């Protein structure tokens, strides 16, 4: 829940910045719920694998993948480029 709301704030800020974007609130909300689940899963699963290997790489790799959609949002050019295609 906390993660989902945080993602919405990030997503909505991105949408506000993006010129010509149709109100993405619905889509962002739906995505943020799914992404929050994925991030939580990556945290849990990554922590288990990192604990087994005694190495933080697994947790980092897991979070990198789960956070990838958020990182795309943070790239100001990415959504614009996709929309104009």
């Amino acid at each position, binding site marked *: 829940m906390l993660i989902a709301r945080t993602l919405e704030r990030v997503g909505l800020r991105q949408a506000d910045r993006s010129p010509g974007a149709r109100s993405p609130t619905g889509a962002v909300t739906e995505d943020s719920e799914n992404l929050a689940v994925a991030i939580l*899963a990556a945290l849990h699963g990554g922590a288990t694998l990192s604990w*087994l290997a005694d190495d933080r*790489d697994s947790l980092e790799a897991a979070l990198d993948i789960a956070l990838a959609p958020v990182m795309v949002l943070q790239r100001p050019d990415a959504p614009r480029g996709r929309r104009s295609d």
Partner: protein
Amino acid sequence: MNENSDESPAVRLTARGVRTRARIVTAAAELMYVQGIGGTTLDDVIVASGASKSQFYRHFDDKHALVRAVVAQVGEDTIIRETNMLGNVSTLAGLRRWRDALVKANALRHGMYGCPLGSLANEVSDHDALARSMLEELFGTWQRLLNEALDRMKDTGVLAESADTTRLAVGFLASLQGGYLLAQTARDVEPMATAIDVALSHLESLTVQSRAAS
């Protein structure tokens, strides 16, 4: 077999011993899957396996030894299953079928008990370095199977050349394991499906086709 050979009784005893041991390990694996390692006593295992106490202690010194035998058995089953499911995967559709099979299998139990191997990993004691290193190796093998499937996707031109398949394999395994845990908490397989789907859509964004379109 050979009636007057000195070896005969020993061979028979060994064969029976092997069967008894396997029965104990199977019973222990089932109990630990449902009740957890902590919630399973040696008495539970002895009763469930139908072995006598002396038979039990002939094969296992203590609970640590039993847990290691369970890790080895569950690990072997998992790796055989994953080798069958991932061994020929070289497309996104193939990886989705792998996802569907795992989600469907877990949905049968409403996700209640999680991944048999993952549950052991989450419960094995910090003090049992041997069990931990066995689990590390098993998860390493599982990760390698995923890595090889992703490499085949790269070889066939599905995945972009720049995709880091080693990190992706770790990420997939972590999403899967975390998904199992969330499904267990929710008693619903949905979070597990969602976690793998998000990883799959990330993978989709790394396909040559998607790269060309963006």
